[in-house]
């Protein structure tokens, strides 16, 4: 192995992110390789490598400016600090004077040929005829086939080195080691979507990767060989790329002003709340407690549920703390169901409820038949000459389906929706160790079950238990939508969260778990408390309860809850869709209309992450712009829970937020471009039009109201934590990667310190804080000094 080459590949690989398959679309930061450099440096480097925008387009600033989302005073003072004294209008005009550019792609031929091979090799079952020699890995199969490729020109097999490393050694002869990284960076960055998918495959080691391996080295060898064969330069000329740094500076300042404006409004709101409702400790026990995901969409439904009865809600990461993979009873495929940054310790599968064994068997039988039906149709369509006979025999049925799906999507949805949780009524989830090779699953030790249940209550600052506690995961329903998984639960690796919720409910109901909880951890769950799983359908705001095993004692409570949830669905959809009429009907239509490109908005508009008790946000409408994690600083003296929240959910929300940012500022490069010309490739991704680079992010329709009108506002995430400032600083000092995210300005952090009359402080740099409070400006200076004094010690 040639070490300099391998090292250079590693070094160059940071230029690309990871392209996630659309069946588990994880919103991640496309520039994650740069998280150790500052945000500004990272975006400039990426601008050069990808010819991509670093900051929002001029029209977005214009729209934000015109609707007042950028505060004039804030902007002016930022501009002045940087020695810019003209009027904001004139600077905005300067930004707008930049014109759109379109240049011929210098690597057109190589890019096109490589995209052709990569798409063929990485296909995951869309083609009936696999690329030959696929199981020998990308380089080998490419090598054995390229000799027939007239587009590359004639070659003898013996002229192509046998291994990719050998090929690179030979191709790079005559170049210095310092050139290596430049060469590799250039070739990796030319098709960032495809190389990002190679990156995903090698790190996730998926089933497809195991059977058909590919690596960045394979890709580089094939590509650089092709480049040379076509007589093109391997080492790109030093690009005469010049960015207008003056404009970039302006764009950055405008962005900061926009972010600060938003933070100011958020701070003001929270401050008013903390004064209006000083953490009222009510003594009455609510009728029902419901736990939702921290997802921004939960904020809306929680507001509406709370208003419909004596209900209390919590925010907790939607995988409910169970690091699990889930084996579907429908297709037998095992999918990850916890955040991608967490490795799965458990595997959850389904087994029949005790009284429903026979029904489960016939359910499985029906699944098999429907799988066969799909296989049968595929065969009939693909084979000669049945394809022709099939079209003639079935054409009329397709015609009828055309009419049905176009004219009555809602009716069809209602008919199908009834069947959608059939499995949950027959089965119960069953937890086991993830890499249990035994034939007989043995379950998991009691203390691990207790641990899972306990941390749910620890992290959310739970105090009293209502007779009914509902864990509600969330999932989305949409038709004909390649990006549907991007609307599912990010904390469950883009799966619906229902099974994690059901699992946690089952564990919390176990008498032996409750026994340990009271005996060893002093957590008393009353005997009459029942836990059940549920799922919040984010497209229709319907909440379906998995209540088939509820005992008679709790039936009335469940029935009341159900009817109140229906009311909540009605008002929530009215609020979200802005319609006065039958908003549930329009939501259902959106969920099943095959021509709908915006079934729901997902996490668009996200800008904040609030870690605090619900009482702090309960009386405000946060417009689905904030992730909400329940946390009570008083119940977490050691700071362990907060540390967990900052290491887990905070990092995940940063990924999501950065993904939304980049997909918005350059939708064609970092996002998916417009859905209307998408062409699905390999069952896992999309390309635009006739082909090209694999698209790596969210489509235009998930981010923009129209081609021109902004919907998501590309702001970096502002995290707000209610906890003593010293505790937060300690955690940051212990976790350098979190501190780096802040120091390098990938996210903002604001702390509301209950020890200092709930005043707010904003993280500056290197564990320095400045006051961010809006109300009591008089004490601002003083407290700032105190705060800085307190933490300069820590910094040392």
């Amino acid at each position, binding site marked *: 192995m040639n070490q300099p080459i391998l090292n250079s590949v590693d070094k160059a690989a940071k230029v690309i992110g990871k392209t996630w398959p659309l069946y588990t679309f994880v919103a991640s930061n496309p520039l994650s390789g740069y998280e150790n450099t500052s945000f500004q440096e990272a975006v400039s480097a990426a601008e050069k490598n990808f010819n991509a925008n670093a900051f929002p387009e001029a029209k977005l600033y214009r729209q934000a400016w015109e609707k007042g989302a950028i505060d004039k005073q804030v902007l002016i003072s930022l501009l002045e600090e940087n020695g810019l004294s003209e009027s904001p209008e004139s600077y905005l005009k300067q930004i707008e004077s930049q014109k759109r550019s379109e240049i011929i792609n210098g690597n057109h031929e190589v890019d096109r040929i490589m995209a052709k091979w990569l798409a063929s090799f990485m296909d995951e*079952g869309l*083609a009936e005829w696999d690329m030959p020699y696929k199981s020998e890995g990308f380089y080998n199969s490419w090598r054995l086939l390229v000799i027939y490729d007239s587009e590359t020109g004639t070659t003898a097999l013996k002229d192509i080195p046998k291994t990719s490393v050998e090929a690179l050694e030979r191709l790079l002869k005559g170049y210095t080691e310092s050139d290596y990284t430049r060469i590799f960076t250039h070739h990796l960055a030319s098709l960032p979507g495809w190389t990002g998918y190679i990156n995903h495959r090698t790190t996730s080691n998926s089933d497809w990767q195991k059977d058909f391996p590919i690596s960045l080295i394979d890709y580089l060898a094939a590509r650089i060989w092709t480049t040379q064969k076509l007589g093109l330069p391997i080492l790109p000329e030093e690009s005469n790329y010049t960015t207008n740094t003056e404009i970039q500076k302006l764009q950055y300042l405008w962005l900061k002003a926009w972010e600060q404006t938003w933070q100011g409004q958020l701070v003001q709101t929270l401050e008013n709340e903390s004064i209006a409702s000083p953490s009222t400790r009510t003594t009455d026990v609510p009728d029902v407690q419901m736990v939702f995901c921290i997802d921004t969409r939960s904020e809306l439904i929680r507001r509406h549920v709370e208003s419909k009865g004596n209900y209390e809600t919590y925010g907790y990461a939607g995988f409910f703390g169970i690091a699990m993979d889930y084996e579907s009873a429908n297709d037998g495929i095992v999918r990850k169901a916890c955040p991608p940054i967490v490795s799965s310790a458990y595997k959850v599968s389904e087994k029949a409820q005790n009284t429903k064994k026979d029904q489960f068997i016939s359910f499985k039988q029906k699944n098999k038949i429907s799988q066969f039906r799909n296989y*049968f149709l595929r065969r009939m369509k693909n084979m000669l*000459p049945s394809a022709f006979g099939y079209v003639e025999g079935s054409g009329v049925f397709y015609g009828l389906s055309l009419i049905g799906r176009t004219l009555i999507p809602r009716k069809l949805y209602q008919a199908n929706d009834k069947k959608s949780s059939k499995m949950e009524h027959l089965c119960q989830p069953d937890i086991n160790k993830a890499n249990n090779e035994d034939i007989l699953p043995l379950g998991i030790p009691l203390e691990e079950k207790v641990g899972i249940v306990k941390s749910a209550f620890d992290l959310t600052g739970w105090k009293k238990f209502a007779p009914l506690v509902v864990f509600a995961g969330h999932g989305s329903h949409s038709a004909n939508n390649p990006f549907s998984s991007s609307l599912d639960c990010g904390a469950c690796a883009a799966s619906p969260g229902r099974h994690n919720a059901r699992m946690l409910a089952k564990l919390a109901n176990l008498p032996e778990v409750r026994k340990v909880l009271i005996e060893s951890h002093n957590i008393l769950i009353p005997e009459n408390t029942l836990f059940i799983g549920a799922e919040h359908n984010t497209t229709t705001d319907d909440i379906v309860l998995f209540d088939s095993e509820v005992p008679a004692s709790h039936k009335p409570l469940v029935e009341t809850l159900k009817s109140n949830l229906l009311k909540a669905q009605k008002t929530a959809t009215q609020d979200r869709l802005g319609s006065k009429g039958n908003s549930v009907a329009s939501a259902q239509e959106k969920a099943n209309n095959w021509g709908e490109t915006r079934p729901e908005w997902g996490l668009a508009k996200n800008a904040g992450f609030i870690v605090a008790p619900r009482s702090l946000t309960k009386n405000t409408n946060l417009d689905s712009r904030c992730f909400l994690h329940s946390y009570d600083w008083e119940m977490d003296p050691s700071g362990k829970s907060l540390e967990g929240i900052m290491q887990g959910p905070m990092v995940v929300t940063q990924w999501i937020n950065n993904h939304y940012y980049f997909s918005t500022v350059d939708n064609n490069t970092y996002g998916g471009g417009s859905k209307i010309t998408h062409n699905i490739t390999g069952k896992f991704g999309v390309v635009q*039009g006739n082909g090209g680079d694999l698209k790596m992010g969210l489509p235009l329709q998930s981010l923009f109201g129209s081609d021109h009108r902004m919907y998501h506002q590309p702001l970096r995430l502002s995290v707000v934590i209610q906890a003593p400032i010293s505790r937060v600083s300690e955690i940051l000092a212990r976790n350098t990667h979190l501190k780096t995210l802040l120091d390098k300005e990938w996210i903002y952090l604001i702390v509301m310190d209950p020890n200092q009359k709930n005043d707010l402080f904003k993280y500056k740099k290197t564990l320095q804080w400045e006051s961010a409070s809006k109300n009591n400006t008089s004490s601002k200076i003083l407290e700032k000094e105190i705060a800085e004094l307190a933490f300069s010690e820590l910094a040392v």
Partner: protein
Amino acid sequence: MTRENNLAVNSFQNASNTSDRNQKPAITKIVTALLWLLFSGNLVYLSLNFFSIPEWTYGNLFSINGFTILIWTTVTFFSAIVSSYASNYLMGFRYHSRFMMLCLGFTISVMLLVMSNHIGLLIVSWFVMGIFMSQLIGIDKDWGEAREALKFTQKYFLTGTLFLAAGIFVLAFYTGEFTLTGLASAVAEVPLWLLTVSALCIILAAVVQSAIYPFHRWLLSAMTAPTPASALMHAGFVNGAGILLALFATLLFASNTLTILFIIGGFTAIIAQFTKLLQVNVKQKLGCSTIAQMGFMIMQCGLGFFNAAVVHLILHGFYKAYLFLSSGEEIAQTTPKKPLELKIGPLQAIIVLIFGGLGAYLFATWTGKGMVMDSGIFLTLIVAITVGQATYNIIKEHSLSIVQKILVPPALFIAGIGIYALMYNGVTVLMSSMPMTAQPTPLSWTQIIFGVIFLLGFFIMKLGVYKKLPWLYVKLMNLSQPHKKSVLMYKSKSI
């Protein structure tokens, strides 16, 4: 009262308000309503006058008969579905209104085409149809690759129109007839060489439009069109060949060029069906499938069954429009699968043969095709193999019970063949006034050879022999690449 309160309090910034929502352009609503109206009007007229649609002519410009109404009904149906779909799908697209206008323009040009009697009108509407389609392909003017695709496809369509004009003018100037009806009756007086030249030109125009090999590449480069435009293209536009050939059936018979049609159609059907197997992009896969189906349609014309070709183009339109409009459904997590082993027991083989024969018998009796030894036999053979394949797949499936295995295949093929026969007989009635559109030819060696080739193709596919030919894979992969300049040609950046 805090509970009520938190709903009433407005958000501190940008609470959703109506200005955040998209309004459909007014033109969308008008065009969609108009197309549905046209469709229902046609459908009602067609149903009421089914058995006696009057011939209606206007000077030597227009001639409207059962066939005209049939195609009007079909094309307005597709346009109406597509525009309903597009009114949601293209919401917020900056060229939404333009799309609707092009869609309407395309529909009108097709309607004009099938009602033309004067050849000038025919050629102009053919030309305009191509212009509308390429404008839909390149509707996004800010997208370099789409502009390239527009230019590329437009070249094809212009070539097609030139051939059409040449083919028709040769005849017209020789006979002095400038209407379709006039030409059809004057064909008998034209020398064979001239008929052949004319027929070849018209065939070329037809196969360019239907993306028949070697003119297939435009269709595989046309994915820059928004999805609903693709649906319209694959369900409407490419069918031009079937319509054109049916209109010139007399000429094709008189010039003895049917065999040529049969051969190019047959080759295209086989090549495209194999090429489809290796496509990794869903729209290219559908594109290859369309090419194969068009090949089959041309074959049907070559057998003298222009009515069958018209039925095929309608049914294929349903099928392909559906698949395009639902092409976003192809994302799925899967695991690599080993190909299934092919095993068939003697009893199963007998059932396959019996059901295949039964299917062929039903098809022959219900459609009247293949009852005597003529070209209809070929179509009957296709049906027999299809039924056999369906039966084969069903009887070797373990999850089905014995009863299901015996009952499902007949239920499927009786329903399929029955509905097809209804369509076929209906279309035959509507086309009855057109000369030479249901004229089986005598069984020829070419047909027998292709019958054998199809059977071979069937076994090659079944046994997966093709998977052992890497050179063929690369060859077909390159054959199906889109136009080079329509992929990764530009780098653009908006600031």
